[in-house]
Each structure stands twice: as C-alpha cells, then as structure tokens.
C-alpha cells in the first residue's frame, strides 16, 4: 500500500486532498476507517479514483507490474501525475504508453542517491525488507536450524550462510542471518564493501588476485581478464558448495542480473540447502532461478521471490508511504504539484511529461 494513514496529516497539512481506493489498505493491515479518520476520502472504485485524482500514487505501477499494470492505462487522463515503481529502464514501452496518455510519470526507482533524497529512496527501504525476509525464507525452508546448539541430544552445527552482493539488501540479510546465529560470509565486486560486511559481523570472501598483475593496474581492471573470472568462479564454487544457505542480491536496476551461481555450483551443494535469489525479477543471480517459483535441484531448493516486501506488507507499506510522502512534499507547493526541472530529484525521477518521454536514460 503506497500510503499509510499516519502519513496523511503531513499531506493534508500542505493542502492536498487524499483519495483512497476502497479496501486498498486491507492486506497491509490498514482499514478504510483508519484512512477516513485521518481525513481521506474513500472512493468506491478504481475508475472513479482515477477520474478524480490529480496525482496517482502506487507501489508497482505500469511496467513494474506486468500482470495488472496495463489495466490502468485506459483509466489515466492527460495532465495526471503518476508516482510509483514504473520500471522505465526495463520496460521502456510502458513509459511510451504513459507519455502518449499525456501523463506526467515519476519512477521512484530512479531516485538519485543523494543525501537529501535518502528519505525518498524506496529502493533502499524495500531492499531492507527484502534482505530481512530473504533470511526468514531461507530459515523457513532449511531442514536445519540456524544457530549452533549444544544439547543433550547432540550438537546442531550452525548454518553457513553466504550472501552474494552486499548492498542494502545484502547487508540486511547478513545482519539478520547473524542475529539468528548463522555463520555468515559475503562477497561483493566492490572491495570497499569489505569493511561494511565486517561491520555487521560477517567474513568477507576475498578473491586471491595475482599480485603481480594488481600492482600495475587497478584491481578492477585486472578483474576483467578471463583467468580472473575463472578464479572467481573457483572461489565462489568453493564457498557456495560449502554453504547451507546462499542469498544473492546482485541486482542491477533495469539490466539483466549477472549470473553468479551456476547450475553446476547448485548441484555441488548439500541436499536440503537453500538458495534465495533476490535478483530473480531480472533473471536472477542463479542460473536455476525461476521467478516466484520453487525450483528443486538435487534436493537443493532455489527460491526466486520477486516481491518480498509484499510479504511484510505492513512495515513495507509504512516505509514506502514515508518515501512517497517525502517525495510528494518535495514536488508540491501549496497543495499542488510544482515541477522544477532544475531540481536534481525532480529531473532524475520524471520519466514522461507533456506527452513525451523526457528522461535521458529511458529515451
């Protein structure tokens, strides 16, 4: 749910009127009444809502919601603004649809990563939830317990968790797995992340680079040649196959995710091991991943959840609503949208305007 009741006052204070589709908040645990109490008008149907509203706020809009997103297109009106995850880089065709409709569309995933936009950064907030939930999912499927337990009925060894990609979701996954008592290792291409990984208590898996080579060029440059990739795979294979849980988070927004865990590696894993691939939406970091399906290979379970935040709807909505509200407040003056395309945040997130696709990276 893109707005939660507690956010409404900040919007109404600046003069905005808030319309809520009936029962929209139900799944996340927010009753219509809660919205109404905070001054929202409950609108019976989606069509009616689209007819009345000037700004439409969604979680997953066109593009990002391949199933139902296109159903909204006929409802849109010229001059209307749309805010939400729109996946303009992955599905630029929908951006063009929106432009044709004359809609001003803001893709929240394009939010620039500048300090003052941190409170609007929905990718980060949703990745936080994903990282946490990925660990729960893995723990739920693993036929073993996470923590070390020395009991009268023998010693249960701790689960070994390997996190690939230590961005927002990855770090959160590391921290959550550590909390549950797992032994955690992590890997990321950006070596700067090592310190961050260690700061949440995991071991960083380092690739043994050839010293001679790395003295001439930068470490990254050396990383390009074929022998590097081979050695990288070797190291990763070793770590992956000795892990009980592998969580991959190396998503590159709008691009296909790099394959880090090959089918071969999966086959080398212990029966009962679990792979959670958070990059599933864009093909996955694991060769065997199929989005939103449970794949089993040799007793290894591969999960490719594409929308984990939706499984923690209450808190995910709360965070998203906070992001969107901050964004709307940034865009609005005196209760109306006032677009200033000199502003970095506005410029970077605006995909279409006045019938055109205006974003550099989408055009």
């Amino acid at each position, binding site marked *: 749910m893109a707005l939660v009741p507690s956010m409404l006052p900040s919007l109404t204070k600046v003069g905005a009127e808030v319309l809520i589709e009936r029962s929209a908040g139900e799944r996340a645990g927010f009753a219509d009444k809660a919205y109404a109490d905070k001054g929202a008008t409950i609108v019976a149907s989606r069509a009616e809502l689209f007819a009345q509203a000037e700004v439409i706020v969604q979680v997953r809009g066109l593009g990002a919601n391949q199933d139902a997103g296109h159903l909204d297109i006929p409802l849109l009106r010229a001059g209307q603004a749309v805010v939400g995850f729109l996946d303009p880089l992955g599905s630029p065709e929908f951006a063009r649809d929106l432009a044709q409709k004359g809609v001003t569309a803001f893709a929240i995933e394009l939010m620039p990563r*500048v*300090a*003052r936009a941190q409170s609007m950064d929905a990718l980060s907030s949703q990745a936080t939830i994903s990282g946490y939930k990925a660990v729960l999912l893995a723990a739920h499927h693993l036929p073993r317990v996470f923590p070390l337990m020395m009991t009268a009925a023998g010693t249960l060894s701790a689960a070994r968790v390997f996190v690939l990609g230590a961005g*927002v979701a990855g*770090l959160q996954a590391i921290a959550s797995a550590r909390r549950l008592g797992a032994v955690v290792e992590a890997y990321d291409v950006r070596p700067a992340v090592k*310190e*961050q990984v*260690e*700061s*949440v208590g995991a071991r960083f898996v380092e690739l043994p680079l050839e010293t001679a080579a790395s003295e001439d060029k930068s470490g990254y440059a050396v990383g390009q040649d074929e022998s590097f990739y081979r050695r990288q795979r070797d190291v990763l294979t070793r770590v992956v196959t000795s892990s009980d849980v592998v969580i991959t988070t190396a998503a590159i927004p709008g691009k296909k995710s790099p394959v880090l865990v090959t089918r071969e590696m999966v086959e080398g894993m212990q029966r009962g091991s679990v792979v959670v691939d958070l990059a599933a939406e864009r093909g996955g970091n694991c060769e065997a991943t199929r989005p939103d399906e449970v794949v089993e290979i040799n007793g290894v379970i591969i999960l490719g959840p594409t929308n984990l935040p939706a499984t923690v709807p209450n808190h995910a909505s709360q965070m998203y609503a906070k992001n969107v509200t901050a964004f709307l407040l940034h865009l609005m003056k005196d209760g109306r949208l006032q677009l200033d395309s000199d502003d970095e945040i506005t410029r970077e997130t605006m995909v279409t305007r006045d019938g055109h696709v205006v974003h550099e990276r989408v055009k």
Partner: protein
Amino acid sequence: MTALVNVAYLVAAVLFILGLVGLSHPRTAPRGNLIGALGMLLAVVVTLLDRQVIEASTRGLLLIFSAIVVGGAIGAWLALKIRMTAMPQMVALLNGFGGGASVLVAGAALRDASTPSLQLTIATAASGLVGGITFWGSLVAFDKLQEFFLRGKPVHFPMQQTLNALLFIGALAFGVAIALDPTAGWAYWGLVALASVLGVTLTLPIGGADMPVAIALLNSYSGIAAAATGFVLSNNALIITGSLVGASGIILTRIMCRAMNRSLMNVLLGHGVGAGQVGASADAVYAGKVKSASAEEVAMVLGSARRVVIVPGYGMAVSQAQHAVRDLANLLESRGAAVEFGIHPVAGRMPGHMNVLLAEANVPYDKLKEQSEINSQFEQTDVALVIGANDVVNPLARTDPSSPIAGMPIMDVDKARTVIVMKRSLSPGFAGIPNPLFAADNTLMYFGDGKAAVLELIAALKEAG
C-alpha cells in the same frame, strides 16, 4: 626555643605532606589545599618566634609584616583577577617569584654569614643557580602563554645547545669562586646573572602546548632552590618542603610527559608534535581550531555530566565497539547521569545498522531515540558523545547548500553544552567532506580506534572515581 621552632617546622612539613596527599584526589583536594595553607601559616608564625627575628628591632618586625602584606595583596589580587583559562601562566608567574625569593635569601645569607662553611657556600651557589633559572624561566613561560611579547611557538636559534652549555659551565665557575672565597659577592651575582640568561634560553624553545610540562619542571626547580636555601640556613622546614616539591614536581613532569606520549627531552628541546603533526591532516576547516583531549580529560567532562546523549555512527560498527559503548553507558548511568542514544536514520551503512549492533549489545530499545525526538533535547544535554559518526552530525548539511549532504536532516549535537567526538583522525566519512563540528568551540576531539578508545575512557572514568 629553637627546638620548639624546629618541632613546629616538622609539624608544618607534615601538614604540607598531608596537603599534597589530599591534592592527589579530586574529592579531598580542596581540603588538601587548606591543610597546606595551614602548614604555611604555622611555619610563618613560628618563624616570628625565632631568636633572630625576636631579637630584631621593631623596625625589623614592621618590615616583615609590611612585606608580607604587600606580597600577599599582590598575590591575592593576581589570583582573584585572573581568568580561569589563564591559570597555567598564573602558576608560572607565581612560581617565578618563589625562585626569585630563594635567590635573594641565599644571597643575603652569604653576606650575613660570619664564617661561611663549605656547606653554606655550595648551597648558596646551588640556590642562586636554580633560583635564577626558575625566576626567568617562569617569566618566559608566563609570557609565552599570555602572549605579551612572545607567541606560543617554540623559538629556536642556532647553537642553542652550545650556548646553554657555556652558560651552565660559566655559572659553575662562579659557584667554585664562591666556595673558594665566600666574601666574593660579585661571584654570586655573576652566577645569578648567568642563571637568569640560562632560564630564558632554556625555556624559549619549548612550545606553547608543552608549557604545562615546563611549568611543572620549573615548579620542581623552585622546590630544589628552596631546599638548597634550607641547606644554606640549616633549616629543616626549607629542606623538607623544598625536596618534597622538587621531587613531586619531577614526578609530575614525568607523568605529564607520559600522558602526552612525549619524552621529557622532546619537550625541553621543543621538538615533537607542535604544529607539524596536526597540520598534515588539517585543512581550511580545521586549521588550528581542533582541540584534542585525552581519555582522562574526556572522563572528567563526562564525570560531571548529568545528561549524556551518545550518537553512534559507522565507526562504532567498524570497530565493533557496541559492547564497550554499552558498558560506558551503564557506567555513566550508575554514576547518576541520564544516558540516551541518538540514532540517526542513516547512521552506518545500512538501514537499521545501529539497531542491529546495539540490540546485540543488549541496549534496551527505550534508550534509543529517533533523530526527530532527540534533536529537540540537545540543548538540555550536557555532553553529546559522538562515537564514530561523521556525516550524520555534520552541520554543513544545514548550512551549505552545495554540499553533497545538503538537506539531509542531521543530529544537532552542536547544540549540546559539550560535544565529544571519538574517531581515529580528522578523516571524512562516507560523503567525503570535512566537518566543521570538529572545529567548533564546544567540541573536544578524542582520537582513537572506536573500541579501544571507549575502553580507555571507561578505565579513566573508573580511575577518577
């Protein structure tokens, strides 16, 4: 009578010792000072009963009284007028007068002695030498800190060490002359003159920051001068008190050097830290304005704080200091301070980073305050303790619209009475920009690796009792 006077001197000496013992603990220090003063009073009163004084004319007594009144008035005026921040130079000045008095007393005794023994002449020479150095050295030290003529910077000139050596040898030669011919008053004054120059040249190279050490050393000298004068007069009180002060001053000097991680030689020669070391990492924002504090100083500040807010950042995570930080918070609370944690929403490198760590360390959730909640409370906060945070406490976010963190809401730690920032260096954080907070008037930097530094601080707090 003399016996009684001497017993009284012994009592005075005991009072001095007890006074110093008192001064070495915060709780008993004020009483210790009083006991010392009492000892002095006793010594002075008893001296009035000395045969020599009693037999003197009324004029002599009047002179003594008037001199005491004049000196006492000046001393009191100086002591009460001076600003608290100028205390160190004040101590230097007072100390100088003590040294000067020794020079004069020894000189007078040399004149008065009918048949000066070797003990008397050698002691007189020692008193003149050390007293002279003390007097002028103290004046230079005073001036360096007060910045009348000289700035705090070390003054170096060529052949400094050679000159000092020559001066010293010359002074010794005069001393030998006195021993050989006790009537040679000129030799004594020649010795005092050389000692005076030596006092100046020895003190000039010492840097402003090292002055406290120099003053402690000069203080020790003045004690030695008094002890020497005691041998001149065969006076127990002077000997005991002088050697007491002399020895304690030297120990104090050593302790202070160790606390500053300097060797005494470095200090005396004016080498070492000074501008150089700070300069390397400082830039326009920090130049000369950063105040660095030791664990003990930080402990002192925290020791008297009633409301402390701890603001942790990425540095706490890197050094995994969370358990130590929790211990610190508990310790402060056990001493009656209210301690809370101010958690900035993007402190660290992942959402909830601080929460994970502090939960691991069992810091109760209700001690964690959100930024919006705590910000309004910094004005009522005695000490904001920033542990490995940087960007999230950078006031540039409020003031400099061109900075990469412009517009980010920050923790308003600068509104607290005192800010203590604990990090390894002046290096920037994630955003890569300098932080004017570190150079603020009410900020003390406490440099060190997060965990180790916190542990040291805990130890210092416990030590201070």
